[in-house]
């Protein structure tokens, strides 16, 4: 068990500055997910923690000790790779025991730990098989088994689920979460999949261009993004960003769309916008904050909006409907039967209590 502390970590690949000064503390037992688009430096950062890459500057401490000069095997970590990295010439049993044998663990202890891990992962009946005889999900279980038998201080996962099909991915995601509850070791998990990040993390560390854009609990990032990038990265379908101008008049504020039409902002939002009259902004409205207007009185901060349904994408539980708002296409996530046909005019309610207003130049959320 150990905490992890990165301070001022930089990493270059030739001229590419892959990691640009990352400071990060992950507490003991925490499940931290490094997430971001490809090329954001998340895998590099993980590999640096593992010791597979050397940082060009900065310090990496595991359990309070700086490990910069330690080889991977001296850091007492276990790592699960995207491609499983199973040895094709060894049986499942020997694959799982590999790390223990490398560390000269007594045979009795090896047998005990392998069977414990196999039981925990439900692969006890596969121990005598070779990796080529396993399905993708089984291989990933073996890879995880190989990590957990080590009883390492720190677990690193490098996109472990991206080779699995969607259904299996959901299953394995749940298993990994359950595993963390059972063994409570510190885990650092890299993914580009925001659903994995949201569902697994105690804390999401969202990276962009080699820097931490924002970190925090999943819902905190989702509900209080600090930048438009964070708002846009988390959530599916992604947040609608509509260009508009602010109109303020004392305690009252509204957004005016370039194509005409305006939406009055709730007073809580308006308060922080005093003096921002005429400012260009991007209005960020999540698809989930649209609903079909019921006809009754609207809650405070909820405004009505009439639109024509363009694309209709039913998912079964919800129906994603593309509408025009402020001259641009926006997606509204409605109840399954809220919309019937293309071209239908629908009355919508938009919950502006949770709207985010973003400065289009800096990308920073201003309210």
């Amino acid at each position, binding site marked *: 068990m150990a905490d992890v502390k990165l301070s001022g970590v930089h990493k270059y690949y030739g001229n590419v500055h892959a990691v640009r000064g990352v400071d990060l503390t992950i507490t003991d037992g925490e499940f931290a997910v490094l997430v971001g688009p490809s090329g954001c430096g998340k895998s590099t950062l993980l590999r640096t923690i593992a010791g597979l890459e050397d940082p060009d500057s900065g310090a990496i401490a595991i359990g309070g000790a700086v490990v910069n000069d330690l*080889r991977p095997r001296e850091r007492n970590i276990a790592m699960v*790779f995207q491609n*499983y990295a199973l040895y*094709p010439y060894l049986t499942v049993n020997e694959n799982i025991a*590999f790390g223990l044998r490398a560390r000269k663990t007594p045979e009795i202890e090896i047998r005990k730990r392998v069977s414990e891990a196999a039981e925990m992962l439900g692969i006890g009946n596969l121990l005598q098989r070779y990796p080529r005889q396993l399905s993708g999900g089984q291989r990933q279980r073996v890879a995880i088994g*190989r990590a957990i038998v080590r009883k390492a201080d720190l677990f690193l996962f490098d996109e472990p689920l991206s080779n699995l099909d969607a259904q299996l991915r959901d299953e394995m995601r749940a298993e990994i979460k359950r595993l963390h509850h059972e063994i409570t070791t510190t885990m650092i998990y890299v993914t580009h999949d925001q659903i994995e990040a949201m569902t697994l993390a105690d804390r999401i560390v969202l990276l962009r261009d080699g820097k931490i854009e924002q970190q925090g609990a999943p819902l905190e990032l989702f509900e209080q993004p600090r930048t438009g990038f964070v708002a846009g990265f988390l959530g599916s379908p992604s947040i609608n960003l509509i260009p508009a101008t602010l109109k303020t008049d004392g305690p009252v504020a509204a957004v005016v769309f370039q194509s005409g039409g305006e939406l009055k902002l709730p007073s809580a939002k308006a308060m922080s916008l005093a003096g921002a009259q005429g400012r260009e902004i991007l209005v960020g409205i999540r698809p989930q904050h649209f609903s079909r207007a019921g006809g009754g009185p609207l809650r405070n901060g909820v405004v009505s909006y009439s639109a024509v349904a363009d694309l209709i994408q039913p998912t079964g539980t919800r129906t994603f409907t593309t509408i025009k708002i402020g001259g641009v296409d926006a997606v509204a996530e409605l109840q399954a039967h809220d919309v019937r046909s293309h071209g239908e005019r629908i009355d919508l309610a938009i919950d502006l209590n949770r709207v985010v207003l973003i400065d289009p130049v800096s990308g920073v959320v201003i309210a």
Partner: protein
Amino acid sequence: MRVSKLPARKARILALRYLGAGVVTLLFLFPVYWLFMISFKTPDEIYHVPPLWIPGQIQFSNYYVLFKDGDVLAILNSLIVASVSSGIAIVLGTLCAYSLARFGTGGENLAMWIISQRMIPPIAVVFPIFLIYVYFGLVDSYFGLILLYTAFNLPYVIWMMRGYIVDVPLELEESALVDGLNRWEVIWKVVFPMVRPGLMATSVFTFAFAWNDFLFALVLTRTEVITFPVMLTHYFGGQSNFWAKIAAMSVLGTLPIFVAVSVMQRYLVRGISLGAVKG
């Protein structure tokens, strides 16, 4: 029960194919067959007109002569020189190849430069080498021949093994490094098993190179470490050719290669890396 029959046209094509394959096989095997047969014949039978397809009786006197006169020592010399040199080349070459493949030693071009060494026509360097060998007293010694064959095989081994090693998924090695192995252990416990089929195939070729070399062995040996191909030439005389000895010696010289290929064959065809990484 009726066995399902092929349509007549398909059956005819199949028959033709087998016929073709049979003819080609006979054509290629005949010289080998003839070699074996001569080695069992008596002198009278060898020169019999018309030729005898099979000897009157299988007799080993041709071989016996080779053993009695000590000619078979040439085979032993060849075995020692070829196996030691290819063993050294394989070990050294694989380590070099690992360095090239994983650490980018020498940048982009070193590997190409190394294999280019193999493209020099041996005849162009054999006399300079001979002079150097004379100077250092290496002529007609095991060490001299082993050194030479190792040097000539190294570029080939490096080039081939580099290709096989590059194909080993890097994650397998990284995983092992994290799991507690050092770099040497990774090479021994991960890389070697992964490239074993390639290693075996390469060994066969390096062994065959040293085994079959005639030019260097002819120039660099005198009496002490004469190898099998050089020994064979001694049986071609100005007045007559000793066909019985030539045939028996050739058979003995073919056997080691035959055995090596038979043993290694299963490695040459095994797709061991299946299942390592999902493609």
